[in-house]
């Protein structure tokens, strides 16, 4: 999967490149809008991550030009401005998604996965990790064959972690996707942490190996083994 990153700030560009490469993508970086525009014209990418605040032609201009030329590459806009009008404008001129800086990296990865997967419905109904199993149809969870009672929210949370198995999910992602919070100001971190403590007690409490891990400062991950 080839991703184009158009970002003028060197540090940010480097972080994006390394982070995306670590997740298994081939990354091409453009440092100016013109270069990005040229590259998108020259070769097909599976996805473009486009910074809005670029020197010269900004992200909005680049985006509307390539859309006018009929290039349908999915575009994820990055911006430091959180104004709703900006968001609406970006989506209006053909952006597929929109992320406000500073964002959590797992969030970016999740959005990119959604964009690349778009149209292909994930039909998975049963998940399994080590001896932990989740059956969506029967809404049941077992660990080492023992049934575990989960509240609906805990079930939803575990399912979400399963879908992002091996990848870190941030508190922002959980707040938005599980708690359906629209506002970034809602004091949810304590709630999420408490909920995670409970879920961990239920699925990891008396079992080995531990599967639900906290990644300090970033979020949570469901996987076997401590280190990635």
């Amino acid at each position, binding site marked *: 999967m080839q991703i184009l990153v158009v970002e003028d700030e060197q540090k940010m560009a480097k972080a994006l490149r390394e982070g995306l490469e670590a997740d298994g993508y081939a990354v091409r970086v453009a440092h100016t809008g013109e270069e990005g525009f040229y590259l998108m014209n020259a070769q097909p990418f599976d996805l473009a991550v486009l910074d809005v605040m670029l020197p010269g032609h900004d992200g909005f201009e680049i985006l509307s030009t390539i859309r006018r030329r009929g290039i349908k590459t999915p575009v994820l806009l990055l911006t430091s401005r959180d104004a709703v009008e900006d968001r609406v404008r970006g989506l209006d001129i053909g952006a597929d998604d929109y992320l406000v800086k500073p964002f959590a990296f797992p969030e970016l990865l999740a959005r990119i996965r959604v964009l690349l997967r778009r149209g292909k419905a994930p039909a998975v109904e049963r998940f399994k990790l080590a001896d932990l199993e989740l059956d969506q149809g029967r809404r049941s969870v077992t660990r080492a064959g023992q049934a575990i009672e989960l509240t609906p929210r805990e079930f939803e949370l575990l399912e979400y972690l399963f879908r992002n198995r091996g990848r870190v999910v941030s508190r922002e992602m959980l707040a938005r996707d599980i708690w359906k919070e629209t506002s970034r*100001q809602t004091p949810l971190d304590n709630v999420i942490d*408490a909920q995670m403590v409970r879920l961990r007690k239920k699925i990891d409490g008396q079992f080995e190996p531990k599967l639900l891990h906290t990644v300090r*400062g970033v979020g949570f991950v469901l996987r076997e083994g401590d280190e990635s």
Partner: protein
Amino acid sequence: MNRKVRLRPRHLRTRLTLSYVSGLAILLVLAWAGTCGLLFWQLRNQLGHFSIQEIETVEGLLYFTPQGQLRLKEDYHNHSESKDVIERYLEVRDADGSVLYRNERLGDRSLGNPPFRGEGVGGYSERSERLSDGTRMRVVSRVHVLDGRPLLIRLAHSEEPLYERLRDLSLASLVILPIVLLIAWFAGYGLARRALSPIEKMAREAQEITPEKLHARLRVDDADDELGQLARVFNETLARLERAFEQLRRFTSDASHELRTPLAMIRSVGEVGLQKDGSRAEYRDIVGSMLEEVNRLTSLIDNLLTISRADSGHIQLHRTTVPMLALAREAAALFEILTEEKSQTLDVGGDETAQVEGDPIFLRQALVNIIHNAVKYSPIGERISVAVRNGDSARVVIEIKDNGPGIPSEDQPKVFDRFYRVDKARWRESGGAGLGLSIAKWAVEANGGTVSLQSEVNEGCTFRITLPRAAMPSKHAKPASPVPAPEHA
């Protein structure tokens, strides 16, 4: 080169004087015209009156000669050689209109048109006519019966002297009027300048006031006159501005202080981490700790942005009818797990029909922030209650009551201030920057509501929100989800 000609004078005093002088000019012209008209009318009346007297005299002096010719007894002149007698015009006509007599002054000119019907019958007919040479005349006629024959006597005096006087008067006015107006201009200009000079002074004083010198005020000479009032209003505005500036300054300095705290931690943790050779796990821990501070910074900045947008009025509310109890239940449900952890009970109850007109997103934010505050500061095992009811005068009242440590009365007014925290030392563990309640207050007030706090030490706190009740209680209230779908698609 195409400069537009400016017809309106630039200075207020010029404009004032101009309008005053033109008003005066119009009045003077009107008064003069009225006077002239009246004078002319009176003089002409006098002339007519005089002619009537003359006719009476002439009637007595007319006689027929034995040959049947009409004559005037000229010897009368010996007694009265007055100018008026000489200047009079006289014509006598027969009943069929033929001229019987014309005096010397008239010669053979006709005094006016041929007789009209009823002329001079039963009184005096008085009118203005022109002679063939254009001279304007005041003509009086009367029918007089002499020796059984009805005679039409016409007697006239020239009106020309009257017109001449009128002309003289006009000429005099043409000279006098501009002089009067010129004097009025200077007097008016001086007056306007004197009246306006305090305004210029005020303008100069006001110009000196910069954001750095907002404490300065205009001098008020007489508080009761119009200018004094103006100065007072201006000073009040200045005072409000000064307060706003002061608030802003404090906010900026508080905000930078709050931003500095997590930054300092990131820096120290990073610097200390680099100084030693740690294990991979240790480094992960260091980076994680730094990221935690970054998250704190991020949420702080999000809150600051919300506040700044609220301050600049850039947030648009989308008002609908909001079932308040359902909204409160939903907000409280968010903290269920936290209250369970602390063995607290969080009760939500009240009137299902209480509906509010407002923006559900911001109202929910307000409730969430206040309930979170209650949950945070209530000790383990305590009870928190949220009560919704229809209050008086079209308000809905929501009370959030906790049994926490309470807030000392001297601190209560500051609770809604930005960055205010009752216990400065505890904020790290509770994780707030002291913006939650101030955002809640803003959200409630933006929706036309009020929020207040009642508290006593060791007696807990009661936050009371009142909001405008929805005009028409809808029967189709959906208590399920008062909050619209998330913005992120």
